[in-house]
């Protein structure tokens, strides 16, 4: 698999939604440890809205589809997650402009732009123990992947890097979002956003492999 098409993008978004809904309680429980226990609900609210009008979403292009997802997330997701995931989809939409399918370099560029957008939106840096610390190593692993035409291999490497970040960041101090208020007390806990990104990426790879 060398490229992904609009149908693949749909599958990716749909898989993200399924993960969000299946893990609603689990993600909130993770957030309850040092945060405010709303992450799972917020994310699920957003993706529930995405699924609601699923068949009627604009599918003229990858860009218009992803832009629609971004708008729905922004309209329906509370907490930090609305602006952050909304920005993620918006940046990806912009990155897909004019394209009918996406290569690994396209995807890497989209995700790099998304990371920059999230940084600008919420002021987080890499290392602040947010979902950026799953996204960034994932993209780096994809960048370092030796066979650019093996998209699935690259995705798997990215997903594994994100998964490694779950435990890899446990000992860090949270510096953004609700958990940051606890300072040193956040050491030893998992960041729910990182768990969500890793879980979604693994599920996406699995689905894409099934389809391929």
């Amino acid at each position, binding site marked *: 698999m060398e490229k992904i098409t609009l149908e693949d993008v749909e599958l990716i978004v749909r898989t993200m939604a399924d993960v969000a809904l299946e893990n609603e309680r689990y993600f909130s429980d993770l957030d309850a440890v040092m945060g*405010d226990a709303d992450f799972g609900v917020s994310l699920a609210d957003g993706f529930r809205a995405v699924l609601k009008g699923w068949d009627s979403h604009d599918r003229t292009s990858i860009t218009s589809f992803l832009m629609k997802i971004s708008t729905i997330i922004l309209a329906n997701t509370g907490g930090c997650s*609305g*602006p952050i995931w909304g920005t993620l989809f918006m940046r990806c939409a912009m990155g897909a402009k004019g394209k009918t399918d996406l290569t690994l370099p396209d995807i890497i560029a989209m995700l790099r732009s998304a990371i920059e957008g999230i940084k600008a939106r919420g002021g987080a840096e890499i290392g602040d123990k947010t979902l950026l610390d799953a996204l960034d190593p994932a993209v780096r692993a994809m960048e370092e992947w030796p066979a650019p035409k093996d998209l699935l291999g690259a995705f798997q490497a990215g997903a594994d890097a994100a998964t490694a970040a779950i435990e890899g960041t446990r000992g860090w101090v949270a510096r953004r979002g609700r958990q940051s*208020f606890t300072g040193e007390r956040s050491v030893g806990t998992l960041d729910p956003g990182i768990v969500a990104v890793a879980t979604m990426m693994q599920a996406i790879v699995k689905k894409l492999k099934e389809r391929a």
Partner: protein
Amino acid sequence: MKKFVNNPEDFVKEMIEGVVLANPNLKSIPEYNIVYRADMPRNDKVSIIQGSGSGHEPAHIMLVGKGMLDAACPGNVFSAPPMEYVLECTRLMKSDKGVLHLINNYQGDRMAWDMAKEMAEMEGIKVGVVVIDDDVAVTDSTFTVGRRGVAGNFFVIKAVGAAAERGASLEELVDLGKRVNSVVRSMGAALTSCTPPAKGKPIFEIGDDEIEIGVGIHGEPGRRRDKIKPADEIVNELYEAVRDDLPFKSGDRVALMINGLGGTPISELYLLYRAAALRCQADGLKIVRNYVGNYCTSLEMAGFSITLLKLDDELEDLLAAEAEIPIRVF
């Protein structure tokens, strides 16, 4: 779950229905959790709006009314509202004199309100911003979003609300709001956790003999966990942290608030007020106005916070101005 709820997902919606049923001068737009004054917007008055997570009632939907907020657009319990709620609320309250956004300093709120402001301005709406961050429990640091906004919010609303009724411009209100925020300080402590309806379980565990000093209003852990101690000692610790932060000094005229976090009976709040007032007297702070009750809560959490506001003639006058909101006695 020890709560009076129907379907937990309808919690905010049904609470808003109750507020509007009980206060015919208010209206709502259920789709965006908006509660607003039926007589607003008006082009000769700046509109003042706010909306953070729900669960802090009476903040913010029960602070909508003459001389206070013109509209509120809360999110789910403990979640900042989606950006679109804020944008719709800003559009609804659009006024020639502008719309003032009063934002409690939390990451989610900051982002949603920032985005909504950008979009509203693109539509030609004049927007001013005041960010409230009175909680001294959390150390301010360039690494984080900064201090949290808690009970001091009430004083910002009251002051800008009164000034707006008197015709102040958006710029004047922004200056005033920032000024109030710069002289108000708070800190809280909790004996119990609270249970967000959708979660159905307490947000944190706390022992039968423990107290969380510096707790956040979303159940965020505070400065530290301690053993319960006599009320006067707890007051001393919070009072000193609040006093020393500004710092408040002998001769200052102040407003003193003992704010209940939702599950603390008013008998205890007055017992705490006694201790705090005696400390103020001993330090030469002159208490000109006092507030004892639930202003900014964390659902049914048993706890309280102390807020001190430094007064001057203008602020005293604004605090004394008439206002009318859903929380009332008669």
